[in-house]
């Protein structure tokens, strides 16, 4: 009531005539307190924070990144290629330049002979003092370092491709089955039950007997086995969501089934689906390794972790260093994918009961 637009008092009532200055924009952004304690966070930011709080999940992620980087650049890091054989350099023990001074990885290995064990060093015996096989060389004189990482590359490509294709097939199957319900659901679920009743290994094995072995065939075979779990999850999520208001709203606005399934419901169930994909990658790695082990895997001279393990197995009592790198890489890969999947599951769905 003060200032230059002083109010006039007429007959005891206060009257006031507003002027232009009263309608000026009051810039009070600084006065409005933003509630920082309860500020809403984006869903993904929340997930991110929860994920990185879990130590095991972070370790898993770091391991996957490291192995993937080595799978990409590892085979180029030395002068050997995965298929070149130097038959005069068979079964060389690991030798690393920086470590050989300390008496480890110096290219020597102990051999059991009839008179006890003796130490031999092929590098010195053959006068190849400038030669370094970091992980040793195999039965055909191929560098195990190069082969391990190119094997890891093949295994990763197969597993990731199979998991992604599984995701697309299983997800669509489950979503469609759950959305339409009724007879469609009944028939689709009976088909699924029958498909699920056949042991996976049987399907994969039989398919590979009939088809030409190779990377694409393995991906195809893996694709046929893993989609069942994915479709179950997608269907269950669809059943939960399809009665909700936002689906009804979309339908009222004239959206078609296809739009509702893939544009309305799918973004809401992406969490469980990502988790399932992460869980199916180690399964795919394992299945591929199994196939290679029984001889149905990648054709030679290409290699995968499984085929390296199966090669190393033949001489693992005499040259144990040949089987260690692929086995360690595979165990770490499966472990880290499981850790990441566990972490993601908890981060995406905090209410989930850990099992």
């Amino acid at each position, binding site marked *: 009531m003060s200032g230059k637009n002083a109010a006039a008092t007429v007959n005891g009532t206060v009257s006031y005539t507003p002027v232009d200055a009263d309608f000026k924009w009051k810039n009070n952004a600084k006065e409005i307190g933003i509630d920082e304690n309860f500020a809403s966070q984006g869903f993904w930011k929340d997930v991110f924070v929860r994920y990185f709080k879990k130590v*095991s999940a972070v370790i898993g992620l770091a391991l996957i990144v490291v192995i993937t980087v080595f799978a990409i650049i590892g085979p180029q890091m030395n002068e050997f290629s995965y298929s070149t054989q130097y038959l005069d350099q068979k079964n060389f023990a690991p030798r690393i330049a920086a470590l050989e001074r300390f008496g480890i990885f110096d290219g020597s290995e102990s051999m059991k002979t009839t008179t006890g064990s003796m130490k031999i060093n092929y590098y010195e015996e053959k006068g190849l003092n400038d030669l370094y096989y970091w992980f040793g060389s195999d039965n055909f004189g191929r560098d195990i370092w190069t082969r391990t990482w190119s094997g890891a590359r093949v295994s990763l490509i197969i597993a990731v491709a199979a998991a992604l294709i599984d995701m697309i097939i299983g997800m669509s199957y489950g979503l469609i089955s759950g959305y339409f319900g009724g007879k469609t659901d009944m028939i689709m*679920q*009976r088909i699924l*039950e*029958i498909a699920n*009743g*056949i*042991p*996976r*290994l*049987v399907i994969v*094995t*039989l398919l590979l*007997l*009939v088809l030409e072995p190779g990377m694409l065939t393995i991906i195809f075979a893996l694709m046929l086995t893993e989609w069942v779990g994915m479709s179950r999850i997608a269907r269950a999520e669809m*059943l939960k969501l399809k009665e909700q208001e936002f689906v009804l709203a979309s339908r009222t606005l004239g959206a078609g089934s296809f739009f509702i399934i893939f544009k309305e419901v799918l973004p809401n169930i992406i969490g469980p689906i990502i988790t399932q994909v992460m869980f199916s990658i*180690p399964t795919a790695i*394992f299945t591929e*390794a*199994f196939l290679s*082990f*029984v*001889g*149905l895997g990648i054709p030679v001279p290409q290699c995968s972790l499984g085929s390296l*393990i199966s090669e190393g*197995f033949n001489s*693992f*009592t005499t040259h*144990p260093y040949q*089987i260690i790198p692929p*086995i360690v890489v*595979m*165990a770490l890969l*499966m*472990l880290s*994918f*499981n*850790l990441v999947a*566990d972490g993601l599951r908890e981060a995406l769905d905090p209410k989930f*009961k*850990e*099992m």
Partner: protein
Amino acid sequence: MGKYTLKRVITALFTLLAILLVLFILMQLMPGSPFNDEKLNADQRAALYTKYGLDQPVTVQFFKYVGNMLRGDLGVSYNISKNTPISQLIKTRLPISISIGGYAVLIGAVLGLLLGLVAALKHNTIWDSLATVISVIGVSVPSYVFALALSYNFGFKLGWFPMLFSPNDIFKSSVLPSISLSMFTMASIARFTRSEMLEVLGSDYMLLAESKGISGFALIFRHALRNALIPIITVLAPLIVDLMTGSLVVEKIFAIPGVGSLLVNAIQSNDYNVVISLSFIYSAMYIIIMLVVDILYGIIDPRIRLAKKGGD
């Protein structure tokens, strides 16, 4: 209950039929016929064709094939041991595989329960973390990695157990394969027991039991574990099935004369008939286990039965 059981049995039968159809189609696609042996003359071949019904239309052949398979006539092996009936090959091998699988389930279940119990009772201590680490490793590292590690250290280096299976000392040679197969079962059961026990321990009836003065052994085993066990049984079935597949490579590593190594040999020597018969046996075992377990769930826990009826 009766209706649910019937439905499951019918589904199982259809699955079996579907598998037989798939196997039959694969048989037709496989390169080479079993009866193209050059030593056979036309009459012998015709006799064989009549015996297996190959001169009849495909549909009749299929039903004849189904009949033969279900009666246990699995055909003969071509490469592994020529003209030996496959059922004879399997007869001696099946008990070995089943006993090693059985030991593995037993070891896995007992150790897993104990590990899970310790983890739950000592929640958030070093024991809990240790049990979690063990179970994560057990779940994610494939059984044949354990098999190779065990066979190298305890079989080759220390020589405590035979590296390869020997029929003279079946018990000692079953130790390493059973342990390596049991790791996955143990780890999964430990994880499951832990989470179930944590839930049960926090429940009101445990508080009641405790306030009644029950303590120690009786409290944990009679009140807590009993309630936690039902969900744990539900995870056993898929684990038993996983054991079947895991055993293939493990049997190969330890040279166990079981069904798994027979399948691996058959694959490696292109003995299609053996592969297909064994696939049938594996599928049948799988279906029967799943069927029995599904029906058992219904008997053990009525909630599962009702949920299945409602949510189907």
